[in-house]
């Protein structure tokens, strides 16, 4: 069985992977009809890490990835929006994983939806109007679809990397 023993090593690899996905996403020229709707490829890595390790690792990876991607491809606003969405969606996903009643696709769908909801809440605070709430149905559906796509892909990836073990504890390594 193959193990990624050093936490720093696998965390670096995963951060790089998530960043690359963020970059690839900026290359996709397709506009999905409404502003702000994107696939969220980087969340593929987040979902896989969430399943392979625990929510703490996923949260750390998510925050690091958002801040780095924000500095490289975005601006301060995109960092704030993404952080709100990322943290809320991770909280929801971690909760759903813990209940054990949903498959990867379901967890990811909820994550996609809550990601958009989190961003919308921040938008309401920043723009100081609840009028942006009219955008909610669009964001719910788009979050559902993109979350489902990411979840299905993540499920397939997880099936194939079952033998790969991310989780290592310091105690294990010292033995």
């Amino acid at each position, binding site marked *: 069985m193959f193990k990624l023993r050093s936490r720093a090593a696998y965390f670096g690899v995963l951060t790089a992977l998530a960043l690359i996905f963020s970059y690839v996403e900026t290359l996709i020229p397709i506009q999905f009809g409404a502003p702000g709707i994107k696939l969220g490829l980087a969340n593929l890595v987040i979902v896989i890490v969430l399943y392979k390790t625990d929510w703490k690792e996923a949260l750390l990876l998510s925050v690091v990835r958002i801040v780095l991607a924000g500095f490289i491809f*975005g601006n301060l606003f*995109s960092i704030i929006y993404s952080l709100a969405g990322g943290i809320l969606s991770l909280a929801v996903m971690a909760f759903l994983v813990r209940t054990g009643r*949903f498959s990867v696709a379901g967890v990811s*769908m909820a994550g996609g939806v809550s990601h958009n909801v989190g961003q919308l809440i921040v938008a309401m605070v920043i*723009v100081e109007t609840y009028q942006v709430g009219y955008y909610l*149905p669009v964001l719910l559906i788009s979050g559902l679809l993109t979350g489902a796509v990411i979840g299905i892909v993540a499920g397939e990836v997880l099936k194939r990397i079952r033998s790969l073990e991310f989780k290592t504890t310091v105690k294990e390594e010292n033995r």
Partner: protein
Amino acid sequence: MKKNDLILAAAIILIAAAILAFQFFSQSDGEHRVEVTVDGESFGTYDLSEDQTVEINDTNRLIIEGGEARMEWADCPDQVCVNHRAVERDGESIICLPNKVVVSVESSEANELDGIAQ
């Protein structure tokens, strides 16, 4: 996919549909008004649902009829505003440049969406 996933998806779609339906029905009875300004200063605000005739400083005459507003008469030579089609939707306006009269439609709810995110 598990059964719970589908239930979750259905629930989210239902919520979205419910919000959409709510918006659709609440928007139809949104009250629209026309605001008239002369030389940048507010002249008055009039309800579009009430049929009325508004005399604007003896230079223009605005008629509100059947939920829309049109300029009926103007003392200016070009008559652009008179030939302008009637306005009824939020954001539409009739502008009479020579008399500096602006007639614009706005809904009672402030429509102040502005994009600041990428």
